[in-house]
């Protein structure tokens, strides 16, 4: 057993010395994820508000003004322009100055008073699908409300929905996105650092020298994992503090459980970094391979797109991506206050993935030495 990990401690100590010798690299490795977190955390807001809207009111009556006011009151629309011709209305849409165009025909008020159906034209720019959906829903809602008022007079509503949003009551985007961002940023940092460290040794010829010594493949791999694992863990703590203090995302669950369940994730991404390093000949190659792991873990892990709405094939793919499980853990603990009993299957899968990745990396490494 000891022979299996031969050379672990000398390698580990040497790696710590390397890190301490190059404070600039260390600084960038730790600071860049924080910077990205600040940028992305502020930039990403999926709640749609204040859509610039152009209105062409041909009716110019009290009724038509009431309709426009109702729209403006919803916070979804922001009446930014009044058009006095159809050309101006369409022109504003085409130029992108307005995303929604409202046209109220000249007979709007008369039809309302007659009891015939009054129509309102709502033009929606479909180039952003979630914005379009929100615009259609809200304008339909406003029309429904006005229709009901017209029909019922001052009578009471027969049915009323009282929505209550659990876990993220203010539906702040930051609460949803920042925990996922933690997984993506940690993964990028860890994979890059460990893969580059091993490939650097290959480029400089020290790896060749090491293969001539009794150092065991697992000793070398685990010896390299410890320092970068420690760094990543420290970074995770800093990120959590920033999330709590700067983005005001409350942690509803147990922070220590979160930190403990981060370990299997770190194990997995370190193992992936090692696997990359056995394949890459140069640091540039390692960099590209590491970047290649980022896209699927951003788009297929549930970080941006909901797993539940993915086609079955991609849902299957997402189960192979470690980030998926860590995002479940992060959101589970931070947003829903989940405990060990809710989330342990995710941690178990990550532990298995991590051990597999390390064994595969060690195996690839040995094969290479046998040419």
């Amino acid at each position, binding site marked *: 057993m000891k022979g299996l990990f031969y050379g672990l401690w*000398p390698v580990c100590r040497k790696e710590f*010395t390397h890190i301490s*010798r190059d404070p600039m690299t260390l600084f960038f490795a730790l600071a860049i994820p924080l910077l990205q977190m600040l940028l992305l955390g502020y930039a990403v807001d999926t709640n749609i508000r204040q859509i610039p809207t152009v209105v062409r009111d041909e009716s110019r009556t009290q009724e038509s003004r009431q309709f426009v006011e109702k729209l403006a009151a919803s916070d979804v629309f922001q009446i930014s322009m009044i058009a006095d011709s159809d050309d101006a209305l369409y022109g504003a849409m085409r130029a992108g100055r307005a995303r929604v165009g409202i046209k109220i025909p000249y007979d709007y008020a008369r039809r309302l008073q007659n009891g015939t159906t009054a129509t309102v034209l709502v033009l929606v720019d479909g180039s952003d699908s979630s914005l379009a959906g929100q615009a259609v829903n809200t304008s339909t809602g406003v029309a429904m409300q006005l229709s009901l008022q017209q029909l019922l007079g001052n009578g009471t509503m027969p049915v009323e929905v009282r929505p209550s949003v659990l876990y993220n009551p203010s539906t702040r985007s930051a609460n949803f996105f920042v925990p996922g961002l933690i997984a993506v940023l940690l993964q990028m940092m860890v994979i890059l650092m460990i893969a580059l460290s091993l490939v650097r040794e290959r480029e400089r010829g020290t790896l060749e020298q*090491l293969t*001539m*010594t*009794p150092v065991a493949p697992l000793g070398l791999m685990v010896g390299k994992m410890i320092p970068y694992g420690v760094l990543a863990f420290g970074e995770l703590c800093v990120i959590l503090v920033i999330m709590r203090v700067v983005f005001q995302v409350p942690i509803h669950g147990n922070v220590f459980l979160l930190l403990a369940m981060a370990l299997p994730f770190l194990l997995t991404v370190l193992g992936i970094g090692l696997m990359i390093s056995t394949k890459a000949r140069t640091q540039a190659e390692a960099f590209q391979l590491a970047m290649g792991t980022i896209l699927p873990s951003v788009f297929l892990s549930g970080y941006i797109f909901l797993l539940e709405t993915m086609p079955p094939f991609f849902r299957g793919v997402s189960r192979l991506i470690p980030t998926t499980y860590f995002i479940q853990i992060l959101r589970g603990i931070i947003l829903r206050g989940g405990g060990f009993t809710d989330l342990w299957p995710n941690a178990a899968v990550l532990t298995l993935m991590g051990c597999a990745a390390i064994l595969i990396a060690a195996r690839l490494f040995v094969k290479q*030495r046998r*040419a």
Partner: protein
Amino acid sequence: MTAVITADGLTIRFGNFTAVDHVSFAIGKGELFGFLGPNGSGKTTIIKTLCGLLVPSEGTGTILGMDIRKHAPEIKRHVGYMSQKFGLYEDLTVSENMGFYAGVYGIRGEAATRRRKEILALTGLEPYLDRRVSALSGGWKQRLALGCAIIHSPEVVFLDEPTAGIDPVARRSLWDLFFELSGQGVTFFVTTHYMDEAERCGRVGYIYLSKLAALGTIPELQRLSEANPAGTSRVEIETAQASSMLGQLRGMKGVREATIFGRSIHALIETDQLEAVQRRFPEAKIQTIVPSLEDVFVTLTYQIMKAAR
């Protein structure tokens, strides 16, 4: 003489390419064995195989009596290796590099301190202990690389082109180190491109096109019948116009090889044509010589190339 390193019909193939073709030799304790051959002739492959990093396709070898196929991990503990790439960490200090390699070979505590002192005394690196390797000159890097390669007191040391690209003074002092260690009973296997280095070795092997073309002491190689084909003479021609004469000489009948050596020409000429050469260049002074090591290898190479065609 007990053999410390042996190769017996060693053959290594990568797919269709045969990198090493039935190579056999035996090297005794304390010997300084020189291994020559052009790039890509299989020198490094042989070293890697003997150290247990590559499994031979055919044949076998032993290090200190241990079979390279079966005892690879054990062999690594008794073998030192140094390549032209040094294998040093540039951002660590001299002391840290030595400490790392000591740790990797499992040398700790008292033993590590003692061994460190011995290495420092041998290499003279004491004043540079806390200097980063990146700030050392090529010669000192080489001494440190050697020091790290022998930190575990190996009985066998493989040196893969250890002096490539360093100045002659540093080269000579590194060779002095090899001799000192070899005197203490350490067996050296050295690959090199330099003829003068090969001439320092007790015995030399020459590998060309994956095959061992010659093996022996320097005088043995100089007397090889392949290097002195029957009916030819190895001569040195002293002349005032060596370079203009060379072209004409090469065009003459019976001249097999001719090359400039300083201010004279070394040539391999069929003996019955010697008179014709003298007649054509009356002022030239022609005398028979023993072939140099380079002459031997060039002649061998031509013969192998001709046979391969």
